[in-house]
């Protein structure tokens, strides 16, 4: 009996497509992604693209829209995860790279190169 039930459960695991509703609820299909699931609407794909560009141990700062603290919090956390081993700093003036997420350009930094990552997300190489 143990073997039969285990095989049935394993078959469910391997089966493609959609499961019946009760199993779908257990499996939480809406969360079935390799990405972090933040509270705010965040374009994690754009951040993954930025992560591929950032050199290891480069310093970066993140700028988020000032009126959305949840987005700022989630953006900070997801960037921290995906951008390692690049290193976060608080002040854009101390960073080698700047990630602007649907936010205006901060004063007192000079951009050398711009990478448009879509959805208003921009990665900029700053002048040292």
């Amino acid at each position, binding site marked *: 009996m143990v073997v*039969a039930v285990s095989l*049935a*459960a394993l078959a469910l*695991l391997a089966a493609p497509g959609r499961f019946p509703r009760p199993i779908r609820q257990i499996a939480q299909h809406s969360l*079935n*992604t390799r*990405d972090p699931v933040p509270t705010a609407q965040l374009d994690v794909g754009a951040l993954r693209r930025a992560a591929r560009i950032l050199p290891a141990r480069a310093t970066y700062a993140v700028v988020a829209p000032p009126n959305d603290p949840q987005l700022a919090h989630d953006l900070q956390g997801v960037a921290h*995860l995906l951008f*390692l081993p690049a*290193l976060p700093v608080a002040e854009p003036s101390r960073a080698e790279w700047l990630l602007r997420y649907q936010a205006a350009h901060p004063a007192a930094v000079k951009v050398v190169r711009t990478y448009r990552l879509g959805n208003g997300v921009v990665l900029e190489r700053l002048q040292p």
Partner: protein
Amino acid sequence: MSYRHLLAAAVLLNGSLLAVGYALLATPLRGRSPLAWISYCGVALLVGASTVGVVLCGLAVAGLRIDLTVFGVVAVLLVALGVAAAFALPPATRDRVAPASSGRLSSATPLGSVVAAAAGAAVVAVGVLLLASAFRSSPTLDDVWGFWLPKGIALGRLGLDPGLFLPGGAYQPFDHLDYPLWWSIVLGLSARLTGSLDLRIVDVELGVLVVAMLAAAARLLASRIRPAVLWPCLLLISVSPELHRQVLGGGADLALAVYLALFVLCGALWLAEGGLFELALAVVFGAAAVQIKTEGAPQLLLFAAVLSLAGWKVGRRRQLGLWGGVALAFASALPFLAWRQEHGLRNDISLRHALDPSFLAGRTERVAPAARALGHQLVNPHDWFLVVPAVLLLGVIGALRHRRMLWLAPAALVGVGYAFWIWANWGDTMNLRFRLETSAYRIVDATVLAAAFAVPFLVDRLLPGRPVTRGAEDG
């Protein structure tokens, strides 16, 4: 969406941990049948994970980057050490640390056999479904991608860099810098093995730990509880909605609860029976518990105190053994504690505040809401099903029927865990409503699971017909 890389990562990591665990168990298990060895798979995986994690925590503090190479070397060395010990130690020593029994009790009636088989199959099915759901879910708790996993990635790529792991450095530090490194290290290695930073591996790894806990509990209890009682009780625990929700959450609280619950189980078995095997397991499980979260240490002490009081009649040797084991578990965390001390890193929750009567007296309005929220988490059937009510009810029935206070020990454990978290929320300075809404559901995990493994004992001793026949004894 492909799960091949997830499956490969899970198999590689847990296969390595299993190999380490079995090597370390080779001394006590040497000479047992293959089936007996297989029955220890849950114990072996948790022993391997605890030991590898604890060693890697020490190496991180010593300045090494905890990448896959270091993990591989440590795993190979531990396997070699375990196997060498199994062959080098004299038979008399091996016998002293061997489990008293690797057999299982058999059902006395056909109905008992049917009940045990059905419940056992259901537990296996629930375990498989739990793992299946873990494979299909990214962690829901933002702490996982906010600091637990980033810390692990950083430890692998940069090491314990003071710029990231201490406040006031050159970079923006992580949150919760006071937390130990064990869970971050395990998650960091898991994520690296996926090759593409697939976060579903977090839930998979937590699911594996939970399934291993159920398998370990089944193994440790199978020779002590009749199967018609054991398997339905394990089913009661495994179907708790909160267990499944929190596997998908990916947080460290459940991993901590797994190890604390098994520490309590093995500590209780040591006090009751005096087997060195169970004491050694209690040390290994306790060592992981104090290195997963900061609150693991006080809970370990409190649960050990409850065990010690409940077993006050057992004699000095076993009491000293228990507290010696607790001391060893704490000693394993010394490198990180010394590092924290050296860099002036304090707990997020101030112990000075929490122990200051005048501070506490000024904020008594926090007690009632904390007690209400935590109590609700403990007894609400939508969270932990009927586990805690069963512990309380069975304890009272047993105490009344047998006129022995020992029956109330599991209930006391629940009471102590409950009181501890009320006190922790009372002495905390964070907004209480926010604190309770975001953490009350998971901080009670250790209390619930630690008490849960008492349910099979309570039911077994309350039902008539003990002792039952012993079958499949080997070794």
